[in-house]
């Protein structure tokens, strides 16, 4: 049987071209292995071979995303690859994001199996662990040998279309898909092991992480709503028509702040939603359905509230990382506070 053809993606640093000063180099295709590829080839034995290596600078990739993706995909395609391998990126943030992004893109565009590896706290891990298999590695290149040991067998399994076991068996990061497997100890014994660690204050790993909780205790009620300044904030993606700041329809990287001084009603001609992942027809028809400016203006007039704050803040909730959303809120909450806003109405889609 012919060997499985693997294309390997690495950055300028692992290609031994240079560090930060060379991070802007464009994608380049080299025949055979470069850098860490040798270790993979050895681990693959007779079954697979890295036929080519794509090298790209981290800054270039992240700053010229679309172009870089297209170029790399074409390069992989030109090699008739059966399998695409990226990294491992360890704790290098931009490299990790590049590995995740390109692995995801190759999988979607070329339909071949892909695998990457990085440290669990690498931002690329959170972004892509649910869309591509990412092997958890140590946090520095000193963990290369260990990473190859875990990645190579999984890459072979993926390339051969074999059944992939649970994350705990295969070494990839939990990807939100629960999978059964037979552990070496029975459940009761595992529970006692876990309890002993917990009692001793040692680190333990739960077999089922609870969904992320970030509950915020509600503030006390606004005492005098008739004189309060109320602001509107939404993750429903309402933006002035044309989306002037180009807030992304999913995984938003920014938020917008828009002046609604004198705006009494959001209309189909003036506002729309930037939010993907739901039917936008009703929001586009009348954006008040998501961001109720019209009603608050009425309340303002009737004296039910003091006034509507001059600016509203908006972003897209669809697939946006909790971390980014928190970051946005940290910023604009300060502005809201400085503007003596008494209360905020938060809306979503």
């Amino acid at each position, binding site marked *: 049987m012919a060997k499985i053809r693997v294309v390997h993606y690495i950055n300028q640093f692992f290609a031994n071209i240079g560090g930060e000063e060379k991070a802007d180099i464009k994608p380049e295709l080299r025949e055979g292995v470069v850098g860490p590829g040798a270790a993979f080839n050895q681990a693959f034995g007779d079954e697979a071979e890295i036929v080519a290596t794509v090298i790209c600078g981290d800054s270039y990739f992240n700053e010229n995303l679309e172009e870089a993706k297209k170029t790399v995909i074409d390069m992989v395609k030109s090699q008739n690859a059966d399998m695409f391998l990226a990294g491992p990126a360890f704790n290098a943030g931009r490299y990790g994001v590049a590995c995740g992004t390109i692995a995801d893109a190759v999988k979607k565009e070329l339909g071949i199996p892909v695998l990457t590896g990085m440290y669990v706290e690498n931002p690329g891990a959170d972004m892509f662990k649910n869309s591509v298999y990412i092997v958890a590695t140590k946090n520095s290149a000193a963990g290369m040998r260990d990473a190859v040991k875990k990645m190579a067998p999984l890459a072979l399994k993926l390339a051969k279309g074999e059944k992939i076991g*649970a994350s705990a068996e295969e070494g990839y990061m939990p990807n939100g*898909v*629960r999978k059964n497997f037979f552990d070496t100890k029975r459940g*009761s014994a595992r529970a006692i092991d*876990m309890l*002993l660690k917990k009692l001793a204050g040692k680190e333990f790993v739960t077999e089922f992480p609870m969904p992320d909780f970030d509950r915020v205790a509600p503030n006390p009620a606004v005492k005098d709503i008739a004189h309060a300044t109320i602001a509107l904030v939404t993750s429903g993606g309402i933006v002035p028509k044309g989306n002037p700041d180009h807030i992304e329809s999913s995984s938003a990287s920014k938020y917008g702040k828009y002046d609604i001084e004198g705006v009494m009603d959001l209309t189909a001609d003036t506002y729309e939603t930037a939010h993907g992942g739901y039917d936008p027809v009703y929001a586009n028809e009348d954006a008040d359905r998501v961001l109720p400016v019209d009603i608050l203006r009425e309340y303002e007039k009737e004296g039910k509230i003091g006034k509507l704050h001059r600016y509203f803040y908006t972003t897209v909730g669809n697939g946006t990382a909790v971390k980014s959303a928190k970051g946005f809120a940290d910023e604009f909450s300060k502005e809201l506070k400085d503007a003596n806003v008494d209360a905020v109405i938060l809306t979503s889609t």
Partner: protein
Amino acid sequence: MRKLEVGYIDIHDIQFSNESKVENGVLFVDKEAIKKIVLEDENIKSCEVEIARPGESVRITPVKDVIEPRCKVEGQGGIFPGVISKVTTVGTGRTHALRGSAVVTTGKIVGFQEGIIDMTGEGAKYTPFSKTVNLVLVMNPIDGLKQHEHEYANRMAGLRVAAYLGELGKSVEPNEVVSYETYGVKEGMEKYPNLPRVGYVQMLQSQGLMHDTYVYGVDAKKIVPTIINPTEVMDGAILSGNCVSSCDKNPTYIHMNNPVVHDLFAQHGKTINFVGMIITNENVYLADKERSSNWTAELCEYLDLDGAIVSQEGFGNPDTDLIMNCKKISAKGIKTVIITDEYAGRDGTSQSLADADPSADAVVTGGNANELITLPKLDKVIGDLSPIDKIAGGFENNVLEDGTILVELQAITGATSEVGFNCLSAR
């Protein structure tokens, strides 16, 4: 100090014979004697008795309960107290168990059915009862018997037969004798002053018809959380009347061989001081949940526990009890580990539990009960294959042309045990 010695008599085979006896690891069974015991109940019209051995091409379905034959040799009370024997408190003296054998009851109580035990093939990997030699009772009720009465008749017949078989081991020399010792609060403190105090909280299914558990004969719905000596369960103080959700219910066999109890005893005096066991329920009425979880946490505190293991039984409604218990026990400053299973959908992407809380940061899972497995066509079916598409975990038209059956793990008896009887897990 309280001590129970359990003498384990290893059973390698069951064979029919004119005389019931245990000899050289073989359980000889007089079929007619068994039938007579079953038919003592006039609500049972007829009964077949079959043997299913590990590795045989046999499928047992629909399984109602699995029971280990045991008997009391020394000490007060008898096996299955409050139901087969008098209500005398058990858990001391000496008990004999026919290890490696089990009584399995089957019967079509309602139109949709529960429980598959395959003795070979893919399914056998998941059920613990593919490893035991099983005496299977296939019972048919008199016409028009109501579901409640039918369930009761089936349950009692299984217990009577298990008690009868257990008696056969009374004077047999066991292969292994294990001594389980527990101490009073003060005694334990003095004996193990430096070991962490650990307790076991067992939640018992107690929702209603086919969802019940009995403690010394009392319906667990009607109990308030209480302390029980862990050796009591080894004498059958807790019995299953739970016929639904075969993968994660605890058959009587599992109660008698509760793995959390056994594994805690294994650590008792070494890494922990196994202080005791608290049983609580999983009622439908929300005020009951509130009361039971409050009280459970109080009892944990009263016992001065440093750590607790909480096990669940069932799905949905009990998730709420599990989380309430975990939250309240943790809030007392007691380190808590919970054992559950998951319903994450066939593709494994759905939310696994119906409730959640950040305090549940140490979870052991018995696996995703929705995951699909393919069961091979087997030569013989004991019981009735027709209900298979009506078994929880089966679905319409799931018997494929080649005779293989596609089912969710839910259908397999004991597959995703929430007391951690198996090695199965999920990530």
